């Protein structure tokens, strides 16, 4: 019975980039012409690839790039958890915080002062010494969290970015319900 929905309609995929660099999405595009096969196999809902902004229907597989560095990331991640049958952490940032988590050794004040007051790129252009603070802006978290420390994550695809072949292997396995090839040469953390 579990697979009956798959027979009736194509599985739905949604993707998002939280505190990430979009490199994992670029790697998804690196599956090259296989993207045509992917388009045959699934339907895409919210994703930066098709520019759909909101999840509009129940999603089978939600792919998360990036960790959580602010309140908006947490909100989007929880929205994905509520609407996706399975959540997949894609890439090092989603899995361990990645490069944004380099700030976890510093206080938020140190980060903001470096970004808006002290760094060479802002010299001479922020003479009033303003650090943006507005109700409209998401609040920074005390540190950058990996996604599985915020919500339950079902699958993990490591890499920075994950190799296109690994993404393809895991995605097709999830969609078709088969076992992944689990090739050593594409299972990397960098």
């Amino acid at each position: 019975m579990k697979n009956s929905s798959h027979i009736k309609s194509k599985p739905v995929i949604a993707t998002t980039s939280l505190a990430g660099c979009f490199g994992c999405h670029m790697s998804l595009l690196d599956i090259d012409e296989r993207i045509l096969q992917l388009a045959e196999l699934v339907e895409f809902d919210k994703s930066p690839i098709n520019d759909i902004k909101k999840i509009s229907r129940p999603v089978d597989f939600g792919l998360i790039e990036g960790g959580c560095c602010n309140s908006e990331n947490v909100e989007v991640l929880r929205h994905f958890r509520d609407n996706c049958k399975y959540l997949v952490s894609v890439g090092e940032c989603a899995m361990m915080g990645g490069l944004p988590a380099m700030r976890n050794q510093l206080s938020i004040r140190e980060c903001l002062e470096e970004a808006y007051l002290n760094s060479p790129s802002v010299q001479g252009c922020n003479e009033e010494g303003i650090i943006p603070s507005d109700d409209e802006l998401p609040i920074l978290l005390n540190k950058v969290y990996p996604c599985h420390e915020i919500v339950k994550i079902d699958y993990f695809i490591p890499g920075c970015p994950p190799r296109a072949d690994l993404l393809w292997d895991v995605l097709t396995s999830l969609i078709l319900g088969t076992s992944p090839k689990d090739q050593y040469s594409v299972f990397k953390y960098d």
Partner: protein
Amino acid sequence: MNELVNFTIDKKECMSTKGKYLVDAAAENGIYIPTLCNITGIQPRGACRLCTVKVNGKLTTACTTPVYNNMEVENESPELQDLRKSIIELMFADGNHYCPYCEKSGDCELQAIAYRYRVTVPRFPYSFPKREIEAGHPLLAKDHNRCILCKRCIKAVKDDDGRSIFAFARRSHKLTISVDTRLSHVMSPEKAAYAAEICPVGAILLKGAAFKKPIGERKYDKKPIGTELEM
């Protein structure tokens, strides 16, 4: 003459010389037992616990256990695999291991063993400790973020008079490796390269030698660690 002994690892018949440490005896018989702290030929300390095996039903470290006749060793059971995975995961959660920009990535033994056991995320929360990078030594940089306290550098790197260049400082969860600044300033380039090489992670780095090998040509890019031993 050295006495030969017969023993089994995961029910496979093995033979080696009496008194040889189990890690080395297993390697002679084409069996890989993972380890991060052991260096063949140097007195083992059993620091990393990664080589934990069951000998006649009891947990012990294979790097410190000499082989004897009729020993029954369990090495790759699901229980031991999970135990080893948990040790690797603890190391990743305890330090700051940012593989994407680490110079040692691809040549790192901790990473390679994690690949071998297909570790994705640790079962423990990341601690993101605040640790220092010592870049003041002329030939070496010591990044405490990545140090797993395996003691390899302490045991294996001595100056020409036998003095230790690396030593433990402080205790308990504050334990750290301290580098003798006076000796590090007169260290030979060969010795510095050796220290960087035996470091199983990217905690001791040779200055000016980063990212020499392209991705795809690094030590553990194509084949899992240990496969060179396995038959």
